[in-house]
């Protein structure tokens, strides 16, 4: 379901002109990293977006016509009206950083940890920003496009048990 036009009007009235696109009935609004707490808090308190459906990220390295390296994706939903809204935040090296939305939606905790684990995006004020999928001692961010699919030998970096060791 596309976003309600009044939501977009109110959003533009409150925060000025924001780049907005619509594709297959899905509305997408691009904001900057600094605007994240303000815009998200306003959407939650004033427009009833009480559910954070997903937090994800895309690496646009080598993507045609891309101007930014990372694109954060926030999927919001209003559970009363079934209204949905996608927010995009573009980030760049060397320190891709975005404010955490855990203070607004507790469910963002593990979602942001996954994005940190896979892409190395730092979430300021996250209560527990640790790896969630990969082992703690892992150093790379494997879903970045400059990381080779087969890894850098991490999968072979283990001691070998022989029969005599047991």
């Amino acid at each position, binding site marked *: 379901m596309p976003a309600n036009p009044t939501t977009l009007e109110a959003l533009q009235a409150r925060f000025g002109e924001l780049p907005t696109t619509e594709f297959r009935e899905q509305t997408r609004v691009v904001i900057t990293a600094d605007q994240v707490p303000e815009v998200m808090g306003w959407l939650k308190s004033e427009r009833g977006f009480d559910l954070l459906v997903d937090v994800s990220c895309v690496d646009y390295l080598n993507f045609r016509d891309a101007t930014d390296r990372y694109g954060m994706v926030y999927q919001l939903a209003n559970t009363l009206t079934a209204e949905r809204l996608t927010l995009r935040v573009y980030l760049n090296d060397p320190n891709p950083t975005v404010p955490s939305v855990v203070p607004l939606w507790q469910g963002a905790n593990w979602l942001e940890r996954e994005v940190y684990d896979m892409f190395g995006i730092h979430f300021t004020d996250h209560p527990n920003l640790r790896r969630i999928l990969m*082992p703690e001692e892992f150093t790379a961010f494997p879903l970045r496009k400059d990381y080779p699919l087969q*890894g*850098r030998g991490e*999968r072979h970096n*283990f001691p*070998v*048990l*022989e029969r*005599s060791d*047991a």
Partner: protein
Amino acid sequence: MAVEQLPDNVMVSKLDELASWCRKNSLWPMPFATACCGIELMATGAARHDIARFGAEAFRFSPRQCDLMIVAGRVVMKMLPVLQRIWSQMNEPKWCISMGACASTGGVFDTYCVVQGIDRFIPVDMYVPGCPPRPEQLIQAIIDLQDKIQREGTLNGSEFDTAQRQQPKRALVELPVYGQTPYFNPTSPLVKKL
């Protein structure tokens, strides 16, 4: 001769063969099932295929009570230390079956986090091909393992120490990657155009 004086109900054998005969007919599997091969492993243990016909029906989830580890499914790099620890905790004599393509080679999961064959890191006695293997194939592996135990088993487990038994580990080399290694020269006419 002394043998001729034995009564009819006495058999002569070697102690090693007697021990192996006991061991091979009461294998206690440790089901290390991480993926769809585990479903086939369960089917092997269930009524239709009935692994109890071969004396290996006593699945135990404690490594202390097992002597046959069946690794069924892919093992990721976060799981490998657990696998090695469970293998170390099992009592000797112990054997290992690598069930399916993923456990044996990594299968289709040639990615940064999937171990490309558990035999790189723990000893393996039997490999079962298939994706996933049918229960019949796993049963065949158990029968083959029983033959192996009977053939070379010893009472004191000295077969585990011999130089022949200690297979050299597979070379820890990465597999060739399309477009990045000379094995796959993209301009070669032998390489099918993608």
